[in-house]
């Protein structure tokens, strides 16, 4: 029983050192959804820095800004704005989309 309790503690401890980035200034990006399209459709950001994306919904229907690889989602009402914060990323291309209108898609290029 003690061994199992020890294993539970070790397992829990293993979850603690989760890699949160040290305090760094966020790279600020902005994007608008209009006529079910992202404008611009491609965003660019520096690598290994936290990112803040301000999303404005200029459409008359709600949107859900979502990305599997960025691991973020946010519902934004018609005419409203919202901000999503993204962890520091390695260089690469990261897709995002509107989960309520799946054809509305864009890309974040991290360099």
């Amino acid at each position, binding site marked *: *029983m003690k061994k199992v309790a020890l*294993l539970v503690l070790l*397992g829990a401890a*293993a979850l603690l050192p989760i890699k949160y980035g040290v305090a760094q200034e966020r790279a600020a990006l902005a994007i608008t959804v209009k006529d079910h399209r992202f404008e611009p459709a491609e965003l660019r950001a520096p690598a290994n820095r936290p990112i803040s994306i301000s999303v404005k919904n200029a459409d008359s229907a709600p949107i859900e800004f979502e990305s*599997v*690889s960025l691991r973020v989602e946010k519902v934004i009402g018609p005419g409203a704005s919202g901000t999503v914060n993204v962890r520091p990323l390695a260089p690469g291309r990261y897709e995002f989309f509107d989960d309520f209108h799946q054809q509305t898609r864009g890309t974040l290029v991290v360099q």
Partner: protein
Amino acid sequence: MVTTNKQKKIGTLLRLSLHRPVLNVAIAAVALFACRVSAQAQDNNAFHEIETKYIFGTFTVGSSTGIEGEKAFEPETQAAFGKRGGGYAASATTLEFEYTPTQYLQIIGGPIVSYYNIRNVPDLDDRNLATVSGFEAEFRSVLIDRGPSPLAVTLSVEPEFHSRDETSGAKVVNYALDVKLEADAELIKNRLFLGFNLLYEPETTRGDLGMWSKESTFGISSALAFQIVPNVVVGADLWYLRHYEGALFDSFTGDAAYLGPTFYWKIAPKMLMSATWQAQIAGHEQGINAAFDLTDFSRYRARLLLEFEF
């Protein structure tokens, strides 16, 4: 009027099709699906990023930990069939609530409802019973993020409590801890994935005589998953499991290898299903000269998961 063999065959087919509307619908559905596969498989732009957690059928779990703020309800049923003689079926359905509080951590928990249908199985009491049988929680944390490397790794720690023995359904007090490394690699972008899991599961059980006994299971898996059309993934999953008495692999009792197909379907943006059926294709039980280990493991096993995001 002379009827040729060819005309007879056509007549037979026509009669069959008239008398079998269900068959007609099935043939039409398969034909439509085949057309869709053939058309969409050519268009790589139709394939987008996919969360890998459930694409390997859920015995092998992918590395994705969900999207920050995401909440979901996930009924997941695991079933086991077949022992050495008699009739054996047992299932455990976990009514899971899943929450992703950060981009690195996912928390899951819920009660377990079990069903046992056991008749004339050597060393097991007959039982026909459905009952709430325990509770499990799971904490999943990203260890290696998918970035420039196609490999991603997640650590899963899953403490469990059971008030019924998972195999026999007898009343027990059981504490278990599933510790899993869940890794996957993207071989072809958004299309082909390779998954690996490493499992260590120690558990301790108090039976009806009041004595505590410990056991442990070690497992390793490899799975391949191919997104055949957008939002539909098919594949195969191979597991090798070793069972021991004692929490730290003290005394080997048996091993088993399972192989089976997997199926994943993202039905709607907020709803998915994942399923697998696996057969024990090789195994050995210590001290018994027979094919398979049917004491520590079952002849067949299956899993079905539904996810409803809200």
